[in-house]
């Protein structure tokens, strides 16, 4: 007997995709991506003094702060109730009365919802990218491609986190609470780490003097969305980042492979926890 069978996984993934691609919030957010990328590109072009669109790198860096919030938001919207909500409405009872294993349901959901995120990002950023490529050129094209892939991956990380929360929470409403917590962590992380920095006896002037301890940079792995921003900057081969209004150099140890491995860990661990929670869960 095989452990995991591809056909039931595909069936669940297909259902999740068809069911969620019509989610009005996903449609709105995808349209927002297109509008934002065009708007940010235009703003980036304005900064150079030209009355035209900015290049891909400037556009991406302008957009990074917003995309690091919007993509997690899409993932949380899709994933927060996928187990708890379906258990509450009863549809999960029916699915699990069929010849399918719980792990197959979980993987199917991840793939189906992941496909929705991927399509949303590809459509939104892809369309924007085409406009920039036509009007400005394909400079930093590889970085832009990496940006799209990393944007999909940050979506999958938050999807994994929200599925984990959904597997744990008994009710949909508590899953919403969990989703809000992980979303706000991505917002408040910067403030928290600055507070810890100042609490450790450092001052704002230390930023300008370059007197920044290693742990300050290492801690970026505690926030997937901040890590996503750093990884995108690395992908564009950028050496300095803006933190709390100060421009600082990204240390060498936060290399692209290290950041990718850290992101993969953020993706896989919640998923493994979700599996064990879902496996033991009373539906």
């Amino acid at each position: 007997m095989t452990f995991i069978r591809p056909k039931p996984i595909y069936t669940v993934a297909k259902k999740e995709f068809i069911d969620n691609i019509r989610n009005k919030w996903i449609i709105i957010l995808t349209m927002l991506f297109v509008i934002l990328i065009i708007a940010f590109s235009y703003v980036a072009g304005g900064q150079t003094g030209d009355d035209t669109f900015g290049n891909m790198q400037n556009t991406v860096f302008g957009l990074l702060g917003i995309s690091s919030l919007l993509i997690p938001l899409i993932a949380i919207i899709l994933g927060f109730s996928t187990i708890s909500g379906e258990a509450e409405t009863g549809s999960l009872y029916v699915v699990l009365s069929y010849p399918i294993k719980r792990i197959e349901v979980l993987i199917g959901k991840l793939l189906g919802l992941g496909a929705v995120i991927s399509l949303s990002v590809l459509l939104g950023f892809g369309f924007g990218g085409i406009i920039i490529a036509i009007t400005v050129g394909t400079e930093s094209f590889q970085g832009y491609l990496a940006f799209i892939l990393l944007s999909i991956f940050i979506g999958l990380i938050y999807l994994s986190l929200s599925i984990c929360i959904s597997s744990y929470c008994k009710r949909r409403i508590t899953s919403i609470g969990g989703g809000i917590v992980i979303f706000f962590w991505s917002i408040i992380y910067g403030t928290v780490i600055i507070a810890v920095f100042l609490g450790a006896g450092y001052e704002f002037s230390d930023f300008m003097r370059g007197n920044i301890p290693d742990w300050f940079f290492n801690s970026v792995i505690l926030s997937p969305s901040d890590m996503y921003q750093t990884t995108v900057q690395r992908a564009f081969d950028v050496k300095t980042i803006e933190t709390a209004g100060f421009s600082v150099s990204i240390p060498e140890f936060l290399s692209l492979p290290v950041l990718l491995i850290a992101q993969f860990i953020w993706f896989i661990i919640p998923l493994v926890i979700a599996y064990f929670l879902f496996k033991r869960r009373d539906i």
Partner: protein
Amino acid sequence: MVKKIIMCPKCKHQLTIEGVAGEKKYLTCPNCNTRGVFNFPSEKVIQSEPGANAIEIKGLTKIYNGTLAVDNLSFSVKKGEIFGFLGPNGAGKTTTIKALLGLIRSNTGEFYINGYNTKNDGIEAKKKLGYLPERANFYDNLTPVQTLNFFCELKNVDKSIILPLLKEVGLEESKNKKVGNFSKGMRQLLGVAQTMIGDPSIYILDEPMGGLDARWVKTIREKIKQLNKQGATVIFSSHILSEVQTICDRVAIINNGRLIAQDTVENLNQYLKIKPRLEIIIKNINQKVLEIVNKLDGVVSAKIEKNTLYITCEAKTKVKIISNIEDAGYEIDNIITLEPSLEEAFMKIIDMDRGGK
């Protein structure tokens, strides 16, 4: 040996008694000396030969957060029967069904569906199973066709059955509407259609008629009968006892997570000594008719109210009573026979389980 705490009906004094299943115990209240009898409920569990059972539940115990929901429950359902699974709210019916389907983890117990152990052969066990939960909710953004398509794929069943299934449950015209716009009854019918995918040999229906209006109830009842005629085993839990009585071959009654009775409705009534009742409207009624009736063997009680004679009697005495009344020159206007109902049996069993007489 079963231990029970019962209450004296007169002084409400509580006393603990011990006995075996099916035993009749004569008691005297130590507080007020009232005498009475307590029947320990039968816990007959059918032990059929291997392979004859569609469902077997052995020693199911489930504890939720320290509360005992199901207590060492064992019963089996024979292939080809319609089996009613009854109990008051919170008795443990849904918990039992969920444990059988592997939706919840039991503390103890083994479960067999079509002879497959659900723990070791869960996939095989569920291949020929159709399940309808109490709240049949599906995916709001999908159409009925897409919904059934999903379930067909899960069972590896050809999609050509979808439209005939929708036609069978009367949802053909709504096949392209979103399920999110469906009424509760329509969702339930979609749920029924879903259960029929892959021609299951066992149907487990949890309160399939709950909250539905008469039209939908009739449709689902007819469907259950039809599926059973085609050879399927149907287990359904319900609180609409009249429905259970109409269509079930056997019933199991649980209370506080324990099986307190399992038999045919007829046998339960016989065991509980629930008698039929006669209401005879007599034109020239008088007190003498009571004397005639009370002399007959099998008459438990009789009384007159206005022009109606109310009699509780053994089933076999009914004809004798009527012929005796007519022979005595009374003119009978109308006769109403009230057969023992499952509801009476159910209430009596639950009452007995709670410690009543």
